[in-house]
């Protein structure tokens, strides 16, 4: 079985099936990541489509400087970040005619819905938001977060701590 870098090299040499293999390999983890944020399978698949479409265009310039999984996390993170910001503006401008409160999650003890949580995350400052996305939607350890984002482990922890404090304040006040 070929590793990621071998598949990317094959794709760069014009082998389209190598790209399909990469997609198959990372499809469920990518959809899972977005499913955690959107709480909706269709939206998660749409965002995953965006990610793999970006990869199709940019993988030709991949320079093998890091692991492909790190590169993919970064693309996932940017896509999720854009989606959250887009949604934040939609909420501010009330573009959704029928506001969808999302399904109430029994695992969240009926305190807030997934939508409320991610709407609140969208309002966080950029660095805090990135760390929260990676921690909650990917259950990523701080070490990996620092690799993906370029922050130090300490900075990631501090940002997460601030983010949790702010989220607690916002969600418990609602």
């Amino acid at each position, binding site marked *: 079985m070929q590793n990621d870098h071998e598949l990317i090299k094959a794709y760069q040499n014009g082998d389209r099936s190598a790209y*399909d293999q990469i*997609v*198959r390999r990372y*499809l*469920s*983890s990518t*959809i*899972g*990541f977005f*499913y*955690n944020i959107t*709480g909706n*399978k269709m939206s*998660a*698949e749409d965002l*995953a*489509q965006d990610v*793999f*479409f970006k990869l*199709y265009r940019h993988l030709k310039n991949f320079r093998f400087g890091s692991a492909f999984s790190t590169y993919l996390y970064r693309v996932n993170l940017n896509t999720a970040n854009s989606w959250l910001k887009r949604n934040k503006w939609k909420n501010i401008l009330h573009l959704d005619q029928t506001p969808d409160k999302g399904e109430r*999650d029994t*695992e*969240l*003890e009926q*305190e807030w819905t*997934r939508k409320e*949580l991610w709407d609140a995350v969208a309002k966080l400052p950029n660095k805090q938001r990135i760390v929260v996305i990676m*921690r*909650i*939607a990917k*259950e990523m350890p701080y070490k990996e977060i620092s690799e993906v984002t370029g922050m130090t482990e300490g900075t990631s922890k501090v940002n997460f701590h601030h983010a*949790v*404090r702010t*989220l*607690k304040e916002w969600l418990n006040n609602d």
Partner: protein
Amino acid sequence: MIDFEKKLMNSYLDGPKETNADDFLAKLHNRVSESKDNRRTVITSLCMLIMVSLMTITQFGAPGIPTDYFYDEDIETFFETDFWTINSDSLDHDISYTYDIAYFLLQEGYIWDTVELLDELELEEEIAL
């Protein structure tokens, strides 16, 4: 604070299990080919636009020296149409022709010229009598 953090971390969901990779790939390939078609259309349109702009700027196909078309060596033909070559008396023309001229002058707004013309004709008729 720690409880809240735990709750946040517990909000993690396992992804949907039944994702059809073949369907997903088919949609993805469709999107890729659509994007390629769109790019081709944009490039073709831009090329057309550049060509049309170039042809407009350089006046491709327009005559080099326009005066060639208006130059005529035989200039007499132009001068012969001037009034000084008309060698006839206005009284030789019939009355309807005079009225036509008067009517024309009126239409053009030369009211006093028309009056003058008619007076002149009347005077000339009186002299002739």
